[in-house]
């Protein structure tokens, strides 16, 4: 009898854990470490042992370390293309663009008119009328140049491939020599246009947002003939502007900024998860599997910050007082920028 009772109790426990057992929700703690006011910040040129991250916030740009030390900072003229290797500050109209290093030292000049754009550790110049893209090397010369018959809506690069989308529905993958590795013109919708797209770091996948009626998110995978569509999803609330897309740092996920929605795509399962967002994205940090996705955005009511799981489960949502934001994460160190303030956090998740 006793044995039966003991067995019953064990069975109840086992059943409970099998039926109701689930992962405990995340508990994240953000511990504020420092605050830096960009209006009053001291710049410590070349005095840091850490490799600084680039930032652009509220009319200023430069480099800072995750301990809050700013190693370089300038006021924005009109725009800046900036990454971990250097920057090009530009005015509304330029005949010559000047490449500088992370300490602001002159490196080279580019004799091209247009606006510089950095992506995937590569440097591009997009002509003012958005019909031409040129890749520039470290010494400021044009590696390749592509001219298109309609406006460019997207340029997104990895170290080996560049995704270029056009408003006529065409997208191209350009290799590092400037050769077209793959191109496709979508003609499946009533209105054809590419709204966004990107290529994964290893070149195995392409993600596109294209067309009106229907508007499709498509995941393409590489095969012997180029790329083919693995899966596609129709978007109910069609957007008619640029859709920010990208892949997670580990390449297992992708994200798509839609209208009032952020989609997170689990690539291997071809499963699309949705998170409600409003307005436009200002920054997204997406390390990958098992990690938290951080998103800052702006809508009519101002800024917000969301932390989400890759499943789309929202961990927290908070409003921020300001109009411009940025988000940088290096392991458990976080830098959140809100207008003139930079705030450093330690992130602890359980």
């Amino acid at each position: 009898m006793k044995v039966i009772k003991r067995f019953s109790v064990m069975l109840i426990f086992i059943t409970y854990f099998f039926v109701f057992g689930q992962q405990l929700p995340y508990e994240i703690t953000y511990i504020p470490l420092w605050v830096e006011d960009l209006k009053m910040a001291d710049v410590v040129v070349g005095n840091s042992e850490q490799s600084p991250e680039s930032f652009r916030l509220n009319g200023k740009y430069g480099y800072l370390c995750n301990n809050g030390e700013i190693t370089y900072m300038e006021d924005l003229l009109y725009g800046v293309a900036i990454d971990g290797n250097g920057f090009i500050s530009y005015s509304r109209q330029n005949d010559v663009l000047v490449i500088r290093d992370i300490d602001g030292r002159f490196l080279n000049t580019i004799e091209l008119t247009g606006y510089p754009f950095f992506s995937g550790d590569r440097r591009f110049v997009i002509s003012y009328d958005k019909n031409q893209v040129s890749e520039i090397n470290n010494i400021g010369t044009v590696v390749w140049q592509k001219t298109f018959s309609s406006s460019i809506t997207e340029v997104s690069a990895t170290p080996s491939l560049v995704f270029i989308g056009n408003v006529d529905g065409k997208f191209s993958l350009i290799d590092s020599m400037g050769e077209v590795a793959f191109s496709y013109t979508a003609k499946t919708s009533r209105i054809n246009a590419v709204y966004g797209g990107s290529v994964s770091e290893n070149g195995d996948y392409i993600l596109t947002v294209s067309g009106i009626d229907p508007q499709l998110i498509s995941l393409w995978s590489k095969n012997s003939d180029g790329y083919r569509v693995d899966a596609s999803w129709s978007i109910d609330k069609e957007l008619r502007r640029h859709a920010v897309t990208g892949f997670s740092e580990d390449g297992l996920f992708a994200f798509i900024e839609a209208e009032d929605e952020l989609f997170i795509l689990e690539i291997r399962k071809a499963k699309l998860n949705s998170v409600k967002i409003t307005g436009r994205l200002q920054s997204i940090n997406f390390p990958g599997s098992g990690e938290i996705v951080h998103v800052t955005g702006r809508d009519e009511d101002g800024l917000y910050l969301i932390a989400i799981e890759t499943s789309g489960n929202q961990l927290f949502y908070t409003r921020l007082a300001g109009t411009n934001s940025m988000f940088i994460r290096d392991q458990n160190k976080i830098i959140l920028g809100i207008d003139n303030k930079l705030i450093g956090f330690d992130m602890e998740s359980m």
Partner: protein
Amino acid sequence: MKLNLVYLLLVISCVSVYAFQWPVEDVVIISTFGESEDNQFVKGVDIGGDSQDISPIDQGELVFYSNQGTSPLDIPSGLGTYVIYQHKNGIRSLYGCLEAGSINTNQKQVDLSDTIGRMGSTGSAVGTMLHLQVIDTEFEKYINPLLTLPLLVDGSKPIIDEVYLITEEGKQVINPGKIIKSGVVGLSADIRDLSYGAGYYCPVSPFSISLFINGENLVNINFESLKIKDNKMILQELEGISHDELYRDKWEFYLGEFELNPGDVMVEISVKDFAGNEGVKIFPLKVME
């Protein structure tokens, strides 16, 4: 006779595609199709003057818009805040450099009387303007918007300033009666049309340039459409002239290379604007052995 026929054909072609309306009430053209700007052909027309509300050139549907400065994750754009509409027969129109936040993104279908935005100075614009493009998506080309819009009154004819002879020895201005050596020479000319509006004349590109040597029509450059060929944007589909082949300077047009044989040679350059006004310059030259 030949010129009259060309003019008649021009008028007929204008009437046949005369389908769209001007997007603003007061039209002040400050740049024309095919003009050289930032080492590229201008792919539309720029309308300047005071800021005005903009209507679509035809009924249409919103295809794409970009509100400058709404996301730092967007690619940079010299078109600033801009919007693209789809019209009948594969035609699209683009309205660029608009006032930030002025475009109506909620209205997907637009009619002729709707306001779609306001002239501004976003993107690479240095003053208040509207950059208008007309695109034929079926034939993948940019069309000179003036071919699709009502004719403007224009009383001034295009100006041909200096004409240059380009030889191995360099570039020299040629004047009527000049004595030159025979052989292959290049010819270029400073040409501009004038657009009047807002109290001043603005230099703009002409609509066509023709060159005759001893009465033989050797060059015809028409600013009708732009298309991609061999990764370059070219004027005219058949012969195809790229920007760098045509322009030696903002207003200096390269007309080509010609063999001049000894004797009296008559060089005639004829330039027309869109309204049909014609500027002509004739040079009698003496070509020596």
